[in-house]
């Protein structure tokens, strides 16, 4: 069960990328959230909303433009080389593309043993072999797979190898970047189950990013919804579905198709107008204003701040700002 101990604190995180004509692409713009020990925080949003950039910046894979990310109270972007090395043992990542994320010229053993070797976790070769075999069993493969080349495996099996690699250093925090969107439906369920099982066994804290709302809801304790570089709503996952506050969240939820013809027919749909604006020159005021059905005058002028409307439920919308 999630505790109240903060593992990761993200404070006013901003990440801009240089764009054409000396403009800036505001991929993540002033986002704040905390991740508690043992919980899974899901972040959903449509492509280009900055969710992956946000996750990667939290792992120190990009430098910040502004704001800070604290891991156990320590700013990860100002760590020394030594601290950074220790940090890599505690925080790991699972990638979206199981084909691009494994070196095609390596054997499964080499891939999984790499972290063990880098951090000197095994006393000798025999222990290393035992550890690799255990990791393989843990992710649902067998020890005989170790001697094979990666290219002999299917997408789902590759993703399992990727998970074994991430877990090889015994991390406490796992960042999953769309880990199943490249897989087939029946394989997706296998990977989700595996991640949930491992989280329980190893008491992992997870940051889970995906565009598929039903999957995120299934795996997460809390969900943050992002739109155009901003976090617009953050609450417990069960609450988010029952009582979404932000108009964008409502539209997003209503747009997700449900695999049940009757429920689908009864479902009320909020059709959003138009497309997501460009993050290079985002609109002034609320970024969702142009597509929002509840748009008010103030929305086009002033940017709404994230407020806690009920304990644990944060929304950034002028509708709840009185």
């Amino acid at each position, binding site marked *: 069960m999630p505790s109240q101990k903060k593992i990761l604190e993200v404070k006013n995180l901003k990440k801009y990328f240089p764009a054409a004509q000396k403009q800036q692409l505001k991929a993540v713009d002033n986002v704040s959230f905390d991740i508690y020990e043992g919980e899974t925080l899901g972040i959903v949003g449509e492509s280009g909303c900055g969710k992956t950039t946000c996750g990667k910046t939290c*792992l120190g*894979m990009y430098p910040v433009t502004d704001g800070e990310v604290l891991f156990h109270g320590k700013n990860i972007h100002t760590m020394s080389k030594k601290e*950074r*090395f220790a940090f*890599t*043992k505690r*925080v*790991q*990542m699972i*990638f*979206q*593309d199981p084909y*691009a*994320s*494994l*070196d*095609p*010229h*390596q054997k499964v053993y*080499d891939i999984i043993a*790499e*972290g063990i070797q*880098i*951090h000197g976790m095994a006393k000798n070769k025999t222990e290393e072999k035992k550890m690799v075999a255990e990791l393989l069993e843990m992710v649902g493969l*067998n020890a*005989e*797979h170790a001697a*094979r*080349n990666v*290219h*002999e*495996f*299917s997408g789902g099996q590759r993703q399992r190898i*990727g998970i074994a*690699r*991430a877990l*090889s*250093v015994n991390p406490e925090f796992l960042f999953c970047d769309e880990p199943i969107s490249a897989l087939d439906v029946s394989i997706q369920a296998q990977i989700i189950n595996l991640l949930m099982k491992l989280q329980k066994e190893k008491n992992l804290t997870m940051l889970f990013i995906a565009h598929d709302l039903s999957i995120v809801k299934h795996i997460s304790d809390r969900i943050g919804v992002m739109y155009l570089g901003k976090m617009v709503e953050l609450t417990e996952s069960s609450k988010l579905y029952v009582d979404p506050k932000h108009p964008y969240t409502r539209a997003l939820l209503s747009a997700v198709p449900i695999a049940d013809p009757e429920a689908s027919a009864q479902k009320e749909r909020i059709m959003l107008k138009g497309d997501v604006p460009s993050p290079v020159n985002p609109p002034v005021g609320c970024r969702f204003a142009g597509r929002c059905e509840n748009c008010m005058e103030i929305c086009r002028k002033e940017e709404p701040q994230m407020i806690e409307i009920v304990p644990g439920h944060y929304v950034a919308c002028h509708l709840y700002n009185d």
Partner: protein
Amino acid sequence: MENNIVITNDSFAKLEKKKTVEVSVERQSVWKDIWKELRKNKVAMVSVVLLAILIIAVLLAPLSPYDPYKLDASQKLQGISSSHWFGTDEYGRDYFTRTLYGGRVSLLVGFMSMIMTVVIGTSLGVFSGYVGGKVDMFLMSFTDIFLALPSMLLMVILNTFLKPGLPTLIVVLSLFSWASVARITRAETMSLKERDFVVATQNLGASNFRVIVKHIIPNILGPVIVAASLSVANAILMESSLSFLGLGVQIPRASWGSMLQGAQAHILDYPLLAVYPGVMILITVLSFNLLGDILRNALEPKIVE
């Protein structure tokens, strides 16, 4: 269809499943891949066989009963005979033996300068691509300068100033051919370092050295092999040109290029003297070039349905 079905008592009993390790084979390793692709291609196989024969023959040159350097005026300019397969040259030396020894020099120069070219080019290219930024900009401008130089002219000048000999020749040849290898490897490295598996290794805390040795280099091997093959051909050709100009191997040693130069004087009365080394150069260079092209196609990413 129903007719063919034999129903037994246990037909509808639960199936005992064997635990199988399902594995789908998609691609072989680089070397196996190359070999498979070459096997399929007739031209490639001919090239490989020709080169193999040439290399073996050249290695076995000391078995020849003739001394390639001993002058014997009584034997000069003899035609083809059972004792002199290619006849003799103007100093009475067995031309077949000379050709073999010449091939040793030509191939040695080709391979040595290829190794130097690949080592220098790959190290610089990988370093430049991996580090990126200002270092990359500087190194690549430096590389571009080398690509823009009139190499033949400079090689002639350098060879004139430096102490003549094989090592000089090899160094000079490599000096003017590493740049293109550096360009290729740099581009490959640039794209590889953004790939997820490299990022994953960095996330595990791997040092840059480890990333380069374990993940970058094995993955750029394909293009490097192609470049190496073409670079052997190029070096042999350049060496021949320089030797033809009298700037290559020094007398009494011979290479195919210097043999061509020697044959000049007798081009009208004994044209065969020029034909033998000429054909050798042609076969070697053509084979390496063809192999390079075929490898390039073989190593290109294939579209899999």
